[in-house]
């Protein structure tokens, strides 16, 4: 009895909550009216397996035995990587970043962009590459791309406060260059968190 109620409830829920999964074509509407019971889109459970009946947790606590040894992180099946692997910057990347800086200073933004893309292929997890690339795009007036690249930089700079601060400040600058002062303030706020 209870089981049926659960199944029915689930079916009803699925039918109601789920938006109609079809973008119903016009010619189908008549068809739909013709076949009223059951309306398409509603699930009809067949042969519900006896399955596991779940105890309401509020009432009955679930007990588990304790492990004899704690699982080591290496034996974890899927482990999160909390600490970003910050390898020392490769000399090749240093050279490319340097020449990009010089080109940027000298106003040759295209050349800077080329060097930075080479750097990106070698070190795609280096926040500095994204920082400089976003700055070059900002100077080229490509504000939307500049912001996106900087955001990607934020993504790779995870856990590196100094880099995050610089990147968010840059985003603030990009936004204010693009005339979005509210966004710039929000980004500055973000920068001050680090």
């Amino acid at each position, binding site marked *: 009895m209870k089981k049926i109620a659960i199944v029915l409830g689930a079916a009803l*829920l*699925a039918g109601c*909550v*789920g*938006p109609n*999964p*079809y*973008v*119903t074509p016009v010619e*189908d509407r008549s*068809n*739909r009216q013709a076949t009223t019971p*059951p309306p*398409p*889109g509603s*699930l*009809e459970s*067949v042969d*519900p*397996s006896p*399955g*596991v009946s*779940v105890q309401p*947790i*509020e009432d009955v*606590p*679930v*007990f*588990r*035995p*304790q*492990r004899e040894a704690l699982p080591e992180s290496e034996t974890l*099946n*899927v*482990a*999160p*990587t909390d600490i*970003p692997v910050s390898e020392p910057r*490769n*000399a*090749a990347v*240093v050279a*490319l970043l340097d020449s990009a800086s010089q080109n940027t200073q000298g106003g040759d933004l*295209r*050349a800077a*962009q*080329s060097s930075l*893309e*080479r750097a990106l*292929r*070698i070190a*795609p997890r280096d926040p500095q590459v994204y920082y400089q*690339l976003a700055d070059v795009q900002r100077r080229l007036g490509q504000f939307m*791309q500049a912001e*996106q690249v900087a*955001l*990607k930089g934020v*993504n790779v700079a*995870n*856990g590196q406060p100094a880099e995050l601060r610089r990147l968010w400040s840059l985003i603030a600058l990009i936004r204010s260059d693009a005339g979005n002062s509210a966004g710039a303030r929000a980004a500055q706020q973000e920068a001050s968190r680090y």
Partner: protein
Amino acid sequence: MSKKRNSRKNSRSRKASRSWIRALLGPLLKLLLVLTVIAAVGLIYLDAQVRDKFEGKRWALPAKVYARPLELYPGQQLSAEDFRLELKGLGYRTVSAVSHPGSAHWSAGRVQLVTRGFPFPDGAEPSRKMTLDFGRAGLERIRDESGRSLSLVRMEPILIGGIYPQDNEDRDLIRLEDAPAMLPAALIAVEDRNYYSHHGISLKGIARAMWVNFRAGQFVQGGSTLTQQLIKNFYLTDERTLARKLLEMPMAVLLDLHYSKEEILEAYLNEVYLGQSGARAIHGFGMGSQYYFGRPVAELDVAQVALLAGLVKGPSYYDPRRHPQRALSRRNLVLRLLRDQNRISDEEYELAKAEPLGVVEQRSLQKGAYPAYLDLVKRQLRQEYREEDLSSEGLRVFTALDPLVQARAERAQETTLEQLEKRYGKSAEGLEASMVVTDPQTGEILTVIGGRDSRYEGFNRALDALRPIGSLVKPAIYLTALEQGYTLASRLQDEAFKLELPNGDIWAPDNFDHRSHGEVPLHYSLSHSFNQSTARLGLTIGVDKVIDMLERLGVERELKPYPSLLLGAQALSPLEVASVYQTLAANGFRVPLRAIRAVTDAEGQELSRYPFALRQQVEPALVHLIQYAMQEVAREGTAQYAYSQLPQNLNIAGKTGTSNDQRDSWFAGFTGNRLAVVWVGRDDNAKLPFTGSGGALRVWTDYMRREHPEPFYATRPEGVEYVWIDDATGLLSDQRCEGSRQLPFINGTVPRDSVDCGQLRRRNNPLDWFRGWFQ
């Protein structure tokens, strides 16, 4: 002037006083006059033509398409073997002591080489003599000639193809000074001995040719001068008519009159026909050298030069690949002529004669090795350039193709399909496959394989084979659910159900093992690819929401909102699948997949560039969660096979896919720096004896085994916390409790209630010793 002569002739004929002659002569002379005028006009016209064509644009230059240049830097994961392969692709000679560009000397773990240098759009890379040291970790050190360390060097890129004009003529222009000095010498020796002394045509030459032929007892020399041959190829059609023969001589004289011998010779070097590769006609010594020896003409030795010069007379008859014996004796004849004319010494002659032909196998040529990738490049170029510009302006197209990646992917596909056929016998006959490999960080397409024969220039399955993607769609559904507030620990019902479709059909999804699994955690349902729970979930959150997610992830095709989409009835190409998975690999930033980096004109001036661009489409925190579940696919789910072959620390994230009735076998997955999508199936759409994990995953795994990719590091984004969850109930648990696993949650979505294994009590809790009794 002609009138004067006329009257003089008239007076002479009067003396003859034969009336019928006079009667005939008058009109004849008039006719002669008219003919002379016509001839003069004709000559002027010919002259104009000769000059116009010679000075104007002479050749349609095919666009050149280049692979990515290999960047060399200390610390790079590049094995000596990889570098050897790259040099082979570039046609470097292995020598005992390096001296010239394009030569390399190998000794254990070390290579000394002279690069050729290359004018890149962002600056020229000079030719360098350098030494590379390889170690266990890869490239360890680069030193220049004086022993100084270099931090970054760019090799010249491999030419992988061209875009040819209507007549399919392929050529690579060279200047006379680029050609080895022996090349013009050999041509002159064998084709036109008096080239520098005649005026376009040579009666002496004709006489000499007859004499040489007579003495040799065979047809060795033709009577035409090089100038005439050029005229023939350059201005006239292939028809062997008398009119053409008559035009050839005056045009040759005119050409000789207007231009220097050097200019004419240079034009000849670039015009002459040297062979045929399928529909592609090989013209000029620049391309000829690449086609037969796989290296620039400047790097050819005497024997090779002699072979090419000998080919001019009959590229098909003397084809060194099809008729090596004929080619060899022809080459040696050229060498003998060079010796007889004192262009080479007796010693040089003997050495050169002893050389093998040295022609590279056609299959080893880089040009023609990447038809599927080139197809993609051309389609993209045609959106922006006119066809005639592509095939005639000598554009340079710089792509991201990585020949090393392609070689590994090809090998993996080849050997795995052979194994599958061996294993499944008749039911696995006629398998086809295709692959796309990208760099998940930059969005560059590293290789595209369009079918089992990767050199076949036909149906490109990677772009054009639209196949139902099966369970590859699932990550998009689960990501949609996560965005709507589900967690990885949410409980799903894996139960059978029926759904009546608007057309009256009944849809009743079944699981692969034909069983329902009851209540399952969301992450488990994805990693084990359950259909019933996925379909229920998809219907609950809405097919239109899933479609919206697929579009955000990268599908551009119009998607039909049928419920069957939830189980992957939607057909996509491997390239489209790659663009979806690319966004998942790049933490929710959609990067348009790029094959072309830049296009320049023939002089290296940049015409267009395709910079790194991206757009955040999904919250990185949500993508982190789905990446977790996709890693579970390989750790515990349907793609466990991968770890039987690959290192445990690789953190593979991916998804298997099998279409209805097992007609398509898919795997899409990524590591830190490689994303690969593999499809295996049949062109006639017949059933396969294996699933996604039995077929495509094996190709994928074998490819990654050869690639040695970087591990995938899913760094925890802000706003995500990892907590211990009880597998069986989805309740909060603890590291110390059995049956628990760590799962990532968006902050604030962690379940509140917890199982109890005593973790909530303090360590010195009296219950601890009590529990100890039961352990």
